[in-house]
């Protein structure tokens, strides 16, 4: 473990930084702090956050953070004691807006576009289909990289039941839009599958009639119309999915795995790191966030505190000194537990590059706090 790892330096000259990890470990803060550090060193940076809560907005002090990149006022950053040689834009993923743009780009004409946008299955798609949000996140990432407006794009990944979900999202979404089995079975309804296997279709009609009995005919009509609308767009989807996959797998991308010094997020971080390594993604570093530092005093008891407190005019110096000693023991125990957890993590992952961010008294909601996290990530 290298405590003075300069993670920002490690990520310089990459085009994409994906920040992943369990929920509640401070992914968004780490994403924003890394973006800030890269921008400070001269890169044109965009940071994409996904969570519906406007976390990054509060961290960066931007009131209306939308789907469109918003420039963070450089004065805010220099006031926080950071040089600002580049630019920092922040945006919040709006899955609907991203998907609407995708449809606009891929639809053959205006009528087709309108038909899709009006479809009820489509209207619920971005929120309802498993992986849709993750798909939109990587799609937006690709748009930003493709625009050439940025040297590097930092992606804060969606809070998922499984932090790995977004890796499979493009393919899952493509398969869904393709809807091969479904098209065949919807058969006459969609005009597709005319040459389908007879036996399968017979069974399929039965399946469909059962589904129809349960859901009502309207849903199947909408679904069939939805798939029809996507006819001719499938290739575009499929090409985009492979482009995204190639981008994520390329050497221009680095994955950063964030965790806290607790067993649950560390377990997720270990699973995530191994999966990324096995699938040959380029690993940047592990960030252990909110680590409790070892208190001073070398573990010795604070025997002289009561004297000092008496001199300071405390009413019950002995009692107060005892309570303070208890607070110190608790702080030492916490630090020891964190060290233990970090050692286990390092061992499980074979000592990967690791950046440590100490637990701060206050959550970084202002640029000053964020700059402090950036400096920690730079190993300063």
């Amino acid at each position, binding site marked *: 473990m290298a405590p003075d790892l300069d993670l920002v330096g490690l990520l310089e000259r990459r085009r994409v930084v994906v920040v992943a990890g*369990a*929920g*509640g*470990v401070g992914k*968004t803060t780490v994403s924003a702090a890394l973006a800030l550090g890269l921008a400070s060193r001269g890169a044109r940076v965009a940071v994409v956050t996904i*969570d*519906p*809560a*406007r*976390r990054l907005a509060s961290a960066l002090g931007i009131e209306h953070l939308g789907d469109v990149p918003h420039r963070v006022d450089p004065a805010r950053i220099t006031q926080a004691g950071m040089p600002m040689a580049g630019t920092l834009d922040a945006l919040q993923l709006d899955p609907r807006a991203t998907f609407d743009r995708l449809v606009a780009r891929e639809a053959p004409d205006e009528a087709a576009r309108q038909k899709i946008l009006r479809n*009820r*299955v489509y209207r*619920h*798609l971005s*929120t*309802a*289909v*498993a992986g849709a949000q993750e798909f939109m996140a990587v799609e937006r990432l690709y748009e930003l990289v493709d625009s050439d407006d940025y040297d590097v794009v930092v992606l804060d990944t969606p809070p998922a*039941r499984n932090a790995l979900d977004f890796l499979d999202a493009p393919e899952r979404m493509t398969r869904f839009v393709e*809807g091969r*089995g*479904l098209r*065949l079975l919807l058969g006459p309804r969609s005009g597709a599958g005319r040459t389908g296997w007879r036996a399968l279709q017979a*069974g*399929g009609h*039965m*399946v469909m009639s059962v*589904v*129809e009995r*349960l*859901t*009502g*005919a309207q849903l*199947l009509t*909408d*679904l069939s119309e939805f798939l029809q609308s996507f006819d001719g767009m499938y290739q575009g989807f499929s090409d985009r999915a492979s482009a995204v996959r190639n981008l994520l797998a390329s050497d221009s991308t680095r994955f950063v795995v964030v965790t806290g010094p607790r067993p649950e997020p560390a377990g997720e971080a270990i699973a995530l790191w191994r999966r990324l390594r096995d699938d040959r993604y380029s690993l940047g570093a592990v960030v252990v966030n909110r680590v409790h530092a070892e*208190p*001073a*005093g070398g*573990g010795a*008891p*604070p025997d*002289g*505190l009561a004297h*000092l*407190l008496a*001199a*300071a005019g*405390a009413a019950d110096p002995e009692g*107060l000194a005892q*309570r*303070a*000693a208890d*607070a*110190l023991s*608790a*702080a030492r125990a916490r630090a020891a537990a964190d060290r233990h957890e970090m050692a286990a993590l390092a061992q499980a992952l074979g000592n990967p590059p690791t950046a440590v961010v100490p637990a701060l*008294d206050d*959550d970084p*909601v202002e640029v000053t706090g964020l700059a402090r996290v950036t400096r920690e990530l730079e190993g300063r």
Partner: protein
Amino acid sequence: MEQPPLIGRRLAFVLGKGGVGKTTVAAALALGMADQGQRTLLVEVAAEQRTGALFGVPPALDDPVQVRPGLFALSVDAERATQEYLTIQLKVRPLVEMMSRSRAFHQVTQAAPGLAELVTLGKIWDLATTVRDGTPVWDRLVVDAPATGHGIALLEAAGNARELAGSGPIHDQAGAIEKVIRHPQATGVVVVAAPEDLAVTEAVEAIAALRAKDLPLTCAIINRVRRSPFGAADREALVAAAGSAAAGSPERAAADAALAVANGADHDAREVEGLAQAGGLPVAVLPEVPDLSPGSGGLEVLSAALMDDPAIGGADGA
């Protein structure tokens, strides 16, 4: 109409951002209800199956597992719930098997927006409304819902499905489920936060979303709130002692650790206040509990604190 406290409602949904301790709070809530003599089922929806560890039993899948007197736990999974639903609806086993094997069926369930959530919610509704020999099988259900966004999607699933289906059995059943979910005498929704700015911000947004969707929001719960045994005079003396102690000495470290405890408690109190003000609703406060392992008594501390809260345990605190 006077709204009952959470314990007076048959169905309680526990929502919250990942990492705030939602599963722990749901377990403590269910434990408190069971301790008050209600036959309670704790339902875990996210497939993480962490409830078992809190009670020191293996995770429950197909049948409720008793974890404490009067308290049972069950993990609900969309796929199994879909199978079960089909079995009830179709009544013909080979047909059910054919459906479950059908790739197209899986695509429809994936494509029909929110169907997985609807089936999950339907299963919860079914558990909450099942009556045997004239008595409800469960007096109380506490649902450990998926993290905020997905949790709200779960609560909305019935309303969405009713609209989307237009007609047919799903439309009718979704309507019946929606009625229970929206009824403030039957259902209560609590939002769990931790005393951190970002978690509080997200809780405030979840509260606004629940209000906008007219779901029966009951209260917020803020978890892991630190307390301090150091008063204002103590702090003054500690600051002075820290100033006179040698740098790097254990005395200096102890004074600093004590001041950090006091500052941490101040910080958390501000977060609680911020949530109560921005959320505009009662906030139940749970202390930070160092050990939640089975037998440590940690869960019992949380459950007692919850039941003492008027919005949860009732006006008389019981």
